[in-house]
């Protein structure tokens, strides 16, 4: 059986500046699709980089956990979609800005908005490998690669940072996670950038029929298989999950996940979608925090967090809220 680990603190940094989706620059065809996504506004601050967003969230998470950056044994940075510079390291940039001098620091990514899962896996592995290690910080600054913030016909991207302190004890237990990826879709969505100025960067889908049918239906089948496996290896039945959380791409994507798994998605997802748009790998824990705050996931209850990325990757996390997490060591 996989070994559980704990989320000690989860913090979000959302810039104050809001932009109404209706005010973003769309073509008529894009707007026709966009207005049906269920996103009303996004946070957007062009003065803040992905690293700035991550560091702001990291400082909040450390404060929530009662830690100093020098207490960190490891720092795992989920790669941003478009780094400010090539060749340099965003991960060690975050390390320097935080002052996390002792932390073993590295980046994780390659799975689009599912990249939280490999980051959590790396955190768990680090704690399992290093007997004296206690604190791992996973951070991500979500900032779209393109200035118009739009991925046709999928979603509108906002700005936001997230940081999670991971340890052997804590109020939220990650009991298990399952993943799958299919490399055939590696470039279904892409931003060409080498031959054009930033103002012309666009998130382009190479084949919309392939996205809307083939990848969609593979997603249904993969999620069903992963969900069945996740429940089976944790001795759970279909009705024993109290709360299902997805990613904030669109209302249609939430319906798609619900119908694919024959479950109901927590209200927190549509609420966050409407208020913040898509925040990449940060969606799932943003929704988890909101679901707990809104009473949709009570003490001792379990949630499944569903992730799907068109790269293509899928992940499911089984999380338990509360119980004896304050004293029990899991790793």
């Amino acid at each position: 059986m996989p070994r559980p680990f704990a989320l000690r603190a989860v913090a979000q940094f959302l810039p104050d500046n809001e932009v109404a989706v209706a005010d973003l620059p769309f073509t008529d065809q894009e707007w026709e699709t966009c207005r049906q996504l269920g996103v009303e506004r996004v946070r957007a601050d062009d003065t803040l980089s992905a690293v700035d967003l991550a560091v702001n969230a990291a400082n909040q998470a450390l404060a929530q956990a009662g830690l100093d950056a020098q207490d960190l044994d490891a720092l795992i940075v989920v790669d941003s979609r478009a780094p400010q510079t090539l060749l340099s390291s965003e991960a060690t940039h975050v390390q320097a800005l935080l002052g996390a001098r002792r932390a073993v620091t590295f980046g994780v990514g390659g799975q689009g908005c599912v990249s939280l899962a490999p980051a959590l896996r790396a955190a768990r592995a680090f704690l399992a490998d290093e007997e004296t290690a206690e604190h791992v910080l996973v951070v991500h600054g979500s900032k779209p690669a393109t200035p118009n913030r739009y991925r046709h016909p999928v979603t509108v991207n906002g700005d936001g940072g997230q940081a999670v302190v991971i340890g052997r004890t804590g109020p939220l237990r990650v009991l298990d996670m399952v993943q799958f990826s299919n490399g055939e879709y590696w470039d279904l969505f892409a931003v060409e950038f080498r031959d054009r100025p930033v103002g012309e960067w666009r998130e382009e889908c190479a084949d919309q029929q392939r996205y809307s049918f083939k990848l969609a239906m593979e997603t249904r089948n993969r999620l069903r298989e992963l969900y069945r496996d996740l429940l089976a290896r944790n001795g759970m039945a279909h009705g024993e999950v109290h709360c299902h959380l997805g990613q904030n791409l669109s209302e249609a994507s939430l319906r798609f996940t619900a119908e694919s798994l024959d479950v109901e998605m927590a209200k927190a997802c549509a609420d966050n979608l409407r208020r913040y748009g898509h925040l990449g790998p940060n969606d799932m824990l943003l929704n988890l925090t909101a679901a707990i705050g809104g009473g949709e996931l009570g003490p001792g209850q379990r949630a499944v967090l569903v992730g799907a990325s068109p790269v293509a990757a899928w992940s499911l996390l089984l999380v338990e809220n509360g119980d004896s997490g304050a004293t029990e060591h899991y790793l």
Partner: protein
Amino acid sequence: MDVRAELTEFLSGATGDRIGPDEDYFAKGLVNSLFALELVTFVERRFGLAVEVEDLDLDHFRTINRLTDFVRMKTAA
């Protein structure tokens, strides 16, 4: 069971348009992920088959005639 007639009725109802037997409803822009889910779920339930990842060739699904052939192939297997 008239597979073609049942698919025609379902697709015409779902799209609000009369779909010809060789008309490519993907090319007409009628397909989004929720429509795809509805279509595949209908085919699975109505004809008692399972659409696996290996079956997800767009050419099996893009016209009524091709989908009819696919259903007959799967149900004969």
